[in-house]
C-alpha cells in the first residue's frame, strides 16, 4: 500500500463567469495546494468546453455561511413583510405606467 497518511490539500470552491455581463457562478470544488494551482486545476476540471471567460477560486474554509437550522428566523421577514413587495399595493387599473 502506498497511500500516504497525509491530510488532503485544502479545498477550494470554484466560481466561473460564463460570459461577460453575467455574475460568477459556483460550479463545484477541488483540492489544490494553493490558489495558483487551484486556478490551473479549475480550468482542467470545470472548463473543458468553453464554459467561461473568468474563474475565481476561494478557500472553502474562508466561506462563512448561514445555518440551515436558522432558516426560518433568518428568512421569515420576507414572508411577513408583504408590504415590501409591489403586489401589496392596490392601484386602480385606470392608472397607467406605475
Amino acid at each position, binding site marked *: *500500500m*502506498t*497511500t*500516504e497518511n*497525509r*491530510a*488532503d*490539500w485544502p*479545498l477550494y470552491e470554484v466560481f466561473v463567469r460564463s460570459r461577460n455581463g453575467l455574475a460568477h457562478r459556483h*460550479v*463545484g*470544488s*477541488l*483540492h489544490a*495546494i*494553493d490558489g*495558483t*494551482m487551484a486556478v490551473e486545476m479549475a480550468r*482542467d*476540471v*470545470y472548463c*473543458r*468546453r468553453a464554459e467561461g471567460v473568468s474563474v475565481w477560486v476561494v478557500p472553502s474554509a474562508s466561506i462563512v*455561511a448561514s*445555518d*440551515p*437550522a436558522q432558516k426560518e428566523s433568518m428568512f421569515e421577514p420576507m414572508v411577513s413583510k408583504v408590504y415590501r413587495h409591489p403586489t401589496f399595493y392596490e392601484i386602480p387599473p385606470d392608472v397607467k405606467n406605475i
Partner: protein
Amino acid sequence: MYTQGLDQRGDNAAAPARADDPAALAAFQARIDREEKIEPNDWMPQGYRRTLVRQISQHAHSEIVGMLPEGNWITRAPSLRRKMILLAKVQDEGGHGLYLYSAAETLGVSRAELVGQLLAGKAKYSSIFNYPTLTWADIGAIGWLVDGAAIMNQVPLCRCSYGPYARAMIRICREESFHQRQGYELMLKLARGTPDQKRMAQNALDRWWWPSLMMFGPSDRDSVHSSQNAAWKIKRVSNDELRQKFVDVTVPQGHFLGLTFPDPDLKLDEGTGHWNHGPIDWAEFNRVVAGDGQCNRDRLAARRKAHAEGAWVREAAAAFAAKRAHARAAKAAE
C-alpha cells in the same frame, strides 16, 4: 461514468439508524416528498448520508477505474483524430470522478479516505471495468454500450434528492453524450469496413453486450433496499426498468450496424413494443463484483502504481507552494 447501485445488495446501508429521531425523520421525508433538494448542511438521516457516501464514492471510483480500459488504447489509436477523441473522453472520465468525489466530500468524508478505500481494495466500482479491452473495436463498444447504459442510469440521477449529487450528474450527462456518439460512430466505421473490421465489431458486441446489461445492477426481485432509496428519491427508476429501456433503444441501433446480439432469446414483443432478452448470468456478475473478474487485480494494481508514481509530483507541488508562500511573506515583510 457510472454507478451500479451496489448498495442495494444487502449491506445495511439504507437501514434506518437507531439514533434518528422519528419526528425529524418524518419531517425529512416530508421535505423529500415536496421535491425539496437536500443540501450539505441540512439535517439528514444517518442512513441517507451513508447510502449517498457509498453510492457517490462508488460512482467516483467507477469513473477513475473506467479510465483504465480505454486509456489502454490511447497510444494505439489508429488515427490522430481517434487519438484526440479518446484522450478527450478519458480526460472527461477523470473530471467526472473529481466532480463526484467533491459531491461525496460534502457529506463529511475526506478525499484521502475515499481514495484510500479504493487503493486498499475495500471500495466497489462498476463491474464493467473488470473486463479487458482486447481490440480497437472494444473502444467503440464501450462508448456505444457502456456509456449508453451509463447515460440511461444517470439521467434520472440528475433529479436525485441530494443537491450536490444531482448537480454533478447534470454536468456529467451533458458531457457524456459525445462519449456514446463517438463510440457508435466508431462501430459504424468498422461495421461498414472490411470483413475483418466487421468481424472485430461483432466480436466486441458479443463480449460487451451481457456485461453492459449487468451494469444496471441486480434484478428488482433481488434488490433489498431499493424501496428505501426510492422513498428518499436517491434512485428514482428501478434497475429492471432502466435495463429494459436500454435494451429497447440499443437493439435497433445494433441492427442498423448490421450486427447481431449474442442472445438467442432476444425478440420483439409486438404487444408491448419491448425487446425481451434472455436470462442474465448473475453468477458471473456476483463473481466480478466480489473481485474475481478478468481484470480486477490488474485495475487495482494500475491505480496503486499510478498513485505511487505520482507521489513525487504531490511532494514537489507542496514544496513549491511552500517556497512561493515563503517568498510572498518575505516580500510582505519588506
